[in-house]
């Protein structure tokens, strides 16, 4: 009888402690995925459809993968919607100036270095300019998409008229036929302002998504119908609906939330960030315009970017470029979510455009060109001040 009572007691304790034995939800500010707050029920459904297409749909040769490819799914390169790693890094090659890419016949601009069984992947032509590009985080893209061209141009200072050593120019790109210019778009010599990608060579999220399906996974769509292997137009391998679901998903992914913003070190680090002029390019605050998604309309957000190109110096000049960007020019990457990068990069940092920096400090020290003064000011800080600045950056 005693044994039974003991067992019943143990069972009771187990049941009472059930909740504690179930894994809790991680804090919201520790996650990059999840929708922007305030979506309607039907918008949540669309978000979920896009989430499944983005994170769960794996392409196989039977469903259109390749024959040449870089990754087998969207989620392969953006684990948890965060940054990628050298394993998922892209290589683009062939273009050295704004006149265009003369190696399209050899597979440019993007190297498909993997192939399904039985096929031979592409190889870089000898002595050609190329860049390796680590996948960026996806979070908050919908906010960036809604910054008006006018606001971007207001941050540009092509001739450095204010004399701060920071110029900042847009990448003027040609739009593919399926991309519709946004309301209030500014056009210069038939070109539009790009804002997505390391060189800001993608105009909007549809442009980015359709290109990625095609160039990264080898999936054709009505938007990008040319097969990267055959170099001819073939039947769509993904539906318009799926592409648009993914676009909606990217559009409505939440912005990363800053952790411990009121911690003294974080607060002091933020002031140092402005003081050493990092904020000249990594603009803390931007605003969205009108959107069909009410939750995104006319919002103030904190991405720490100006969406402009800046000359980053010879050390970051790979010789390759896109659009009207010069080879040494890179779009200011948003810093939001920076501290969570290791959660998608295998517990390590792979920062800068090609993941060459293994820490935030290393990334800062790789800044040159227009950012050289900020780098030198950082080096001149006392150790404790540097720690505060790093604490701030890790809180983003």
């Amino acid at each position: 009888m005693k044994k039974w009572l003991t067992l019943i007691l143990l069972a009771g304790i187990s049941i009472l402690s059930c909740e504690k034995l179930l894994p809790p939800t991680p804090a919201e500010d520790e996650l990059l995925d999840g929708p922007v707050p305030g979506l309607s029920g039907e918008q949540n459904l669309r978000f979920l459809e896009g989430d499944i297409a983005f994170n769960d749909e794996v392409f196989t040769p039977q469903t259109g993968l390749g024959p040449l490819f870089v990754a087998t799914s969207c989620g392969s390169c953006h684990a948890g919607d965060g940054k990628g790693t050298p394993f998922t890094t892209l290589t683009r090659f062939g273009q050295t100036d704004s006149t265009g890419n003369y190696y399209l016949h050899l597979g440019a601009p993007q190297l498909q270095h993997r192939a399904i069984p039985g096929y031979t992947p592409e190889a870089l032509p000898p002595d050609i300019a190329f860049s390796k590009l680590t996948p960026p985080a996806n979070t908050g893209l919908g906010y960036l998409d809604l910054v008006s061209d006018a606001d971007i141009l207001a941050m540009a200072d092509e001739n450095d008229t204010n004399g701060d050593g920071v110029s900042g120019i847009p990448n003027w790109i040609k739009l593919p036929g399926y991309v519709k210019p946004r309301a209030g778009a500014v056009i210069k010599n038939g070109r539009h302002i790009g804002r997505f990608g390391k060189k800001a060579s993608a105009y909007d999220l549809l442009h980015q998504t359709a290109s990625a399906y095609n160039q990264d996974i080898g999936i054709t769509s009505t938007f990008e119908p040319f097969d990267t292997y055959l170099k001819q137009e073939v039947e769509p391998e993904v539906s318009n609906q799926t592409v648009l679901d993914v676009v909606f998903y990217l559009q409505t992914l939440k912005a990363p939330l800053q952790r411990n913003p009121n911690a003294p070190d974080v607060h002091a680090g933020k002031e140092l960030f402005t003081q050493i002029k990092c904020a000249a390019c990594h603009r803390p605050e931007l605003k969205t315009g009108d959107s069909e998604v009410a939750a995104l309309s006319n919002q103030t957000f904190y991405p720490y970017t100006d969406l402009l190109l800046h000359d980053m110096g010879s050390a970051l000049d790979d010789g390759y470029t896109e659009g009207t960007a010069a080879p040494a020019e890179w779009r200011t990457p948003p810093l939001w979510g920076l501290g969570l990068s290791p959660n998608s990069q295998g517990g390590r940092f792979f920062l800068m455009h090609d993941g060459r920096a293994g820490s935030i400090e290393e990334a800062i020290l790789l800044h040159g060109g227009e950012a050289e003064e900020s780098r030198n000011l950082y080096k001149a800080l006392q150790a404790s001040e540097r720690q505060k600045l790093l604490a701030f950056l890790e809180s983003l």
Partner: protein
Amino acid sequence: MNKYVYAIICWPIFFAQTAITQSDSTAWLQRVTADTSKPQLNMDAVYNRPFLQAGKMPVALGGYVESKVEYLRTDGISEGWQFQMQRMTLFVSSSLHHRIKFLSELEFEEGTKEINIEFASLDFQFTPLFNLRSGIVMNPIGAFNQNHDGPKWEFNDRPLSATQLLPATFSNVGLGIWGKIARQDWVFAYEAYLTNGFDQQIIENNENKTFLPATKNNPGRFEENFNGVPLFTGKIAVRQRKWFEIGLSTMQGIYNKFEEDGLRFDKKRTVRVWAVDFNLSLPKTQTSLNGEWAWVSVDVPGTYSQQFGEKQQGGFLDVVQPVLKGKMLGFDNAVLNLACRLEYVDWNVGNFKETGSNIGDHLWAIVPAVSFRPSAQTVLRLNYRRRFQTDLLGNPPALTGGFQFGVASYF
């Protein structure tokens, strides 16, 4: 497909007749029992099952049913309460001659989502050491694939290494030989089969990993060998009757379509599996330990993606300790067990070419359990599962935890 439809239609009719017969004259029916909680050699598991036999009819029937309810949560997200009919399996065996036997196993998984003939073989015994088996055979890789009946286990889920690394239950059309020989307290056994084999889905699948179980998605694998090359499966095992059994097994084959219509388009690419399994009983404490470990090696094209591992490994260890035996809740020979399973699967053993760092894509789990056996052939089991799954890049693991309660019984 027609054969499945036929099987589905015929089974209930056959069983209805049996049930009527049973109510009219139960004395005519004999239950051929087997103590399924104490297996003999793992290779004997297909015959070591309770059957119902009508008089002296040469045909015996049996089967088992397995269902569960679970509540699991992964990183705070739950699918809620899930009630699952995991499987219902029907056996038919017949003795055509005292040295010619037929046994079949028809399995309905998750309702009728999957219907499989898991086993349907004719055994011809020439000597105990030399038997010919032909039909749909269960490839004897590891122990679980041979000895997988739900009522034999104290856990609601099959071991992850058996179902997510190895493709248990894995059976194919083929033929081979098996035999065993006993010397005092020792039994030695072997099995060797040639069967249809794997196909390219093991590296072309929605799992985004090298995944041997994906080959089971090929509905034509019981009628056509994907590449014409037989898969070899072999096992040797030794059992000390009172204490333990240990087995060593292997599968070796070609998984890709390397030529068709006389046209060659790739080299032959191998899939190799090695497994060791053991079970051990400690007579003094009546503790039983049961485990297996498998290594998989797949010749993945170097130009494909490292997402698809060339080497994999994994296994499990079950420890079961009876804590109460005797009359409980009105059952005369009931047993209450405490048990625990440890399991691990690494789908991609190796390092990234780009960084030299370790490739993730692995999981481990611990499953404490309480099981109650009102009889040897029936089990009620309560499990707590805690699983840590790391993605390919080695990011912080997804943590799953939750409870499962289920029943399994032969009938």
